[in-house]
């Protein structure tokens, strides 16, 4: 693994348009990836993970806006004209979607899907070469060549997801966003897909951003993990380190709430997911944090090493007043809903 980053993101914001005002789905996010690295992006539903994934590829709904610095393969992507950004999609940066059942054109055979994608990105290939590439990718994913000319509806959900992955891989992208690729599938199929992902890493070594809410997947498939909350990454680092020594209260709460055979009591995080239109002031986790101090709602915490954690607890130089516990109203049951 060489030291050159294939993707680096600095202070990226992606806001989209909502009925109550702009939704600050991604509000200042920074991370980077080397070739072959797998970064797991975890967080609750609605924390902005999917928007970030799509924002990297520029697939945003009408009225959305993005800024910050996004460097891919040396280029400043956000500064590129639309046509060139479009050219990057698929060939440079791939995306694997969450729901495989509806992601293939019902009127086109699988072979046509591959042919179309390869024709768009690798114009120098002949028809035969395209077909070989496609069959290779499918074989790597466990789809036999006899099914090459079938229609999407003739495959199960798990198979369709594998086809989607093969389709993404056939274009040999350097970076892939996998947006909750196994959420819609049952656990057996999930295990299959994860095994395949590990296989892909060995063979093609793309950089992968694996978006998920399942910490188990992160533990198994990822090198690094970034924990996202309310549009910001509150902690990131190597998976082993983070799982062993989480420094942000939110990460700690997430890890505590996972269930294993040894679980005696259920832990949950009190309160409700934050409103991304008007996120809490200062540290966004403070309304739900059991260690909240007076300084937390007042100022946005800086990042502290070793995990770039955004938490005031890690600041040694706090005044006594700042360190005093924060008084909060009892979270009433109705608010939880």
């Amino acid at each position, binding site marked *: 693994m060489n030291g050159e980053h294939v993707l680096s993101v600095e*202070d990226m*914001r992606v*806001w*989209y*348009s909502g*009925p*109550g005002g*702009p939704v600050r789905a991604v509000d*200042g996010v920074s991370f980077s990836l080397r070739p072959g690295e797998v970064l797991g992006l975890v967080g609750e539903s609605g924390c902005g993970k999917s928007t970030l994934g799509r924002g990297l590829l520029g697939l945003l*709904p*009408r*009225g*959305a*806006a*993005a*800024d910050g610095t996004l460097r891919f393969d040396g280029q400043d992507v956000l500064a590129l004209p639309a046509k060139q950004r479009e050219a990057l999609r698929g060939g440079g940066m791939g995306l694997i979607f969450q729901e495989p059942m509806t992601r293939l054109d019902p009127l086109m055979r699988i072979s046509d899907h591959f042919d179309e994608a390869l024709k768009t990105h690798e114009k120098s290939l002949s028809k035969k070469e395209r077909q070989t590439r496609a069959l290779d990718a499918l074989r790597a994913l466990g789809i036999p060549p006899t099914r090459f000319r079938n229609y999407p509806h003739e495959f199960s959900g798990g198979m369709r997801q594998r086809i989607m992955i093969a389709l993404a891989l056939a274009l040999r992208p350097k970076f892939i966003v996998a947006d909750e690729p196994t959420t819609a599938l049952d656990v057996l199929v999930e295990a299959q897909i994860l095994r395949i992902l590990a296989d892909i890493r060995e063979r093609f070594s793309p950089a992968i951003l694996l978006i998920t809410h399942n910490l188990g997947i992160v533990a198994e498939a990822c090198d690094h993990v970034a924990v996202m909350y309310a549009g910001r990454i509150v902690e990131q680092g190597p998976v082993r380190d983070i799982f062993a020594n989480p420094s942000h209260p939110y990460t700690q709460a997430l890890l505590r709430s996972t269930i294993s055979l040894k679980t005696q009591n259920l832990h949950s995080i009190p309160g409700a997911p934050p409103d991304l239109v008007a996120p809490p002031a200062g540290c966004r986790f403070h309304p739900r944090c059991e260690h909240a101090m007076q300084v937390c709602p007042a*100022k*946005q915490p*800086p*990042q502290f090493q070793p995990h770039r954690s955004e938490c005031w607890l890690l600041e040694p130089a706090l005044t006594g007043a700042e360190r005093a516990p924060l008084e909060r109203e009892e979270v009433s049951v109705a608010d939880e809903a």
Partner: protein
Amino acid sequence: MSVNLPELEGTETALALSGGGRKHSRIPGVDAMRATAGFQRGMLVAGVVIVLFFAVLALFAPWIAPYGFDDDRTADGKVFGRLIAPSSQNWFGTTAGGEDVFSRVVWGAQTALEVILLAVSISIVVGVPLGLVSGYLGGWLDRMLVLVTDALFAFPSLLLAIIVNIAIVGGTSSQVGGILAAAISITVVYVPQYFRVVRNATVAAREEPYVEAARALGAPKYVVMLRYIFGNVVQTVPVIATLNAGDAILTLAGLGFLGYGIEPSAGAEWGHDLSRAVSDTAAGIWWTGLYPGIAIVLIVVGVTLVGESLNDVLNPLLRTAKVSQVVLPERAAEQPE
């Protein structure tokens, strides 16, 4: 022993329509109207204005029309003359039978509105309960009714109306029947529409969890139907009614054109006038056909505009998405880095 069932606030439809917090109106259709915006609201307003215009014409026909619909002379006995071009005495000219075109157009509005209101009301009164009961109870009754209505659907509505009209009126050469006969002929054609829409909505609503809950609490069938399903299903009826009204007007005009529907001595009817005007055109006479024709077009456009804009609102995909472009503000100086 009556069970105290909780009041239901609304369904998906109602909530979607109440646009974030506003009071959900019990009157079907009002919510849909409130939710329109921009171009759709313009369509709605234009349509309502047109319909009201014709309603006024119809209601105040005796005062607006200068002459009776089959008068061929003024009150003091001055004969108009046949096929006179538009003049100060006859604003729209006269017909081959010497009647005043303008008056016939105005009286035609009254005829049209009477028949349509009657037809639509009867259709709703018959079709909606039938659809509700059939959809909810299911079984062989439902299956049979669906088969019958599907068959009726496939058949040209004009021909159906003609046949029914013949049957009602007895088929003898002299009578063609009055307003009621015409209305019933049209009703038979449109009852299947209401039936089908309400039945399908009922079948869908029947599977909803809240209905299951009501039944689990012991609610008798008719209470479930009336209180839970009816309220949701009925929201779609105004849209169907307006779209139907337009079609019904065209059917009535078609009947009149072919010599069915309203008997000439019972009232003026636009379609009938157009049938007489066809032979006039060969001689270049345009006023006998143009004005009744424009009247038909105008009122159908008005009614359809109302129906279309309501329909757009109820279909979430088509609702004018009030999407405003997000503008990212300058970076807040929150980061003490």
